[in-house]
């Protein structure tokens, strides 16, 4: 029973942290003060609620408690600057509603992802404030010492205040650029999680859902959410005993059907909103990848469209991989060999695979060697080593059909 309550508490805290904090920052105009006060309120709740039960409106309770703490603190510090204090000291009660408090999480996320902050700082702040992760958790997830992460967060918060980074939703003329920055942060968090750190992938998905709720009219928000859901649906199938498994060789019964459906629903919403941006296109590709009978020509066409939007040689590499399924390995190699990605390990892994399929075994071996030279220890390296070991011994021998499609 107590365990259930603790689990419920954690869920409530998880749900409410970003919202309570955002409201406090909007009210107090000070990140540090808001964060400290929110922390205190959550600590009090953690102490009291197991005995007293969760209040009917936990958000209101937490917000008011935190706000009162902050006001007490301001009074103590005698640094009252921005608020009329005569009428704000309210008692936190169950009957309190949230009607007086605005949800300011959108303001919060745009502030955290402001381009005047470094990308590292944007990521850390977003996870700390909106995501509610502790400094320790963020440090562990990004494999940096806790002191480094703490310092990064302190500096970022100091800059927000000192440089006058606004706490607001950007006006129309800035919105597209600033939204792209927010989505880039969430996508980066997801990608960090894609290589096996599941907690970051879940965090990115959570943030994606929150953004979709907060910005329901932005197609790219749904595009990103759809793409993340569709990629994440294959999480369990991507690894077998810690070993990387290619998309075409994955056990489809281990794909998360519920997530695929949710991803496709989000994609549908994005398309209905008129979306055809980079995230929507990537989601559409991921959706086609999840089909039983993959339409490679359509995938190649979508990569072509994405390449025109992003001008990215990596996208062109992916287009070549799709095209290999339609026009054959030689056609794909002609594209791959022209790409300026000489130190990119996926280029060499892809080349190796295409060369093998084209029957050029010696060239394939050289390409695997090059890919291995660029790959650190881990599942990816072991995968390439297995491929290399499977290569026929001499030139001319027919190779087993391989594929380097993204798993």
């Amino acid at each position, binding site marked *: 029973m107590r365990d259930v309550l603790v689990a419920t508490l954690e869920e409530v805290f998880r749900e409410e942290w970003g919202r309570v904090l955002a409201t406090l920052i909007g009210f107090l105009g000070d990140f540090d003060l808001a964060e400290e006060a929110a922390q205190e309120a959550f600590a009090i709740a953690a102490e009291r609620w197991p005995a007293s039960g969760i209040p009917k409106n936990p958000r209101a309770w937490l917000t008011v408690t935190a706000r009162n703490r902050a006001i007490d603190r301001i009074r103590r510090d005698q640094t009252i600057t921005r608020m009329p204090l005569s009428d704000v000291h309210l008692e936190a009660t169950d009957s309190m509603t949230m009607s007086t408090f605005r949800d300011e999480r959108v303001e919060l996320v745009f502030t955290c992802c*402001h381009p005047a902050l470094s990308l590292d700082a944007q990521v850390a702040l977003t996870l700390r404030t909106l995501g509610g992760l502790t400094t320790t958790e963020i440090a562990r997830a990004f494999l940096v010492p806790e002191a480094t992460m703490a310092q990064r967060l302190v500096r970022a918060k100091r800059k927000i205040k000192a440089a006058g980074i*606004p706490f607001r939703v950007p006006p129309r003329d800035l919105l597209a650029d600033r939204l792209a920055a927010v989505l880039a942060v969430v996508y980066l968090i997801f990608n960090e999680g894609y290589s096996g750190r599941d907690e970051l992938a879940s965090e990115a998905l959570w943030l994606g859902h929150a953004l979709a709720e907060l910005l329901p009219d932005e197609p790219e928000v749904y595009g990103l959410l759809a793409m993340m859901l569709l990629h994440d649906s294959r999480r369990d199938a991507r690894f077998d005993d810690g070993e990387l498994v290619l998309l075409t060789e994955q056990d489809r019964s281990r794909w998360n059907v519920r997530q695929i459906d949710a991803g496709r629903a989000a994609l549908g919403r994005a398309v209905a909103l008129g979306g055809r941006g980079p995230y929507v296109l990537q989601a559409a590709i991921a959706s086609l990848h999840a089909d039983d009978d993959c339409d490679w020509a359509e995938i190649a066409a979508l990569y072509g469209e994405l390449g025109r939007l992003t001008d990215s040689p990596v996208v062109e590499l992916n287009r070549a991989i799709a095209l290999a399924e339609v026009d054959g390995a030689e056609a794909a190699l002609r594209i791959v060999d022209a790409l300026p990605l000489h130190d990119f390990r996926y280029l060499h892994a892809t080349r190796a695979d295409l060369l093998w399929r084209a029957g050029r075994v010696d060239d394939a071996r050289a390409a695997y060697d090059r890919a291995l030279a660029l790959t650190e220890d881990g599942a990816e390296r072991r995968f390439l080593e297995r491929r290399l070991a499977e290569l026929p011994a001499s030139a001319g021998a027919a190779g087993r059909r391989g594929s380097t499609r993204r798993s």
Partner: protein
Amino acid sequence: MKYVMLIYQGSTPLPHSEAWEAMPADQKQQIYTDYGKLNETPGVTPGVPMGLPANATTVRVQSGKTLTTDGPFVGMKEAAGGFFVLECEDLDGAIEVASRVPAARLGGAIEIRPCETYW
């Protein structure tokens, strides 16, 4: 908020230089017009015009001795070319004004520094 806006010329053609002289007259006129408009922007207090970094003198005092060297403190390309003071709502406002400074589009950059009182 109050900001000091530092103008770095970078590779911006400087007055009297060959690149500047080679510039079409209407383009030069546009630059002067843009700086003129900038100085009339609400919240802007223009700085005094700065001479070229090539004419700078840098002074240090070491062990009580004044040392004087030719040129700016940093490299010629990194030297500040001018400044102005801006009062506006927040950093986004300052970024918007900075983007209208001609040097920002001509190979230079604008550094936005919040004013701070230390004493």
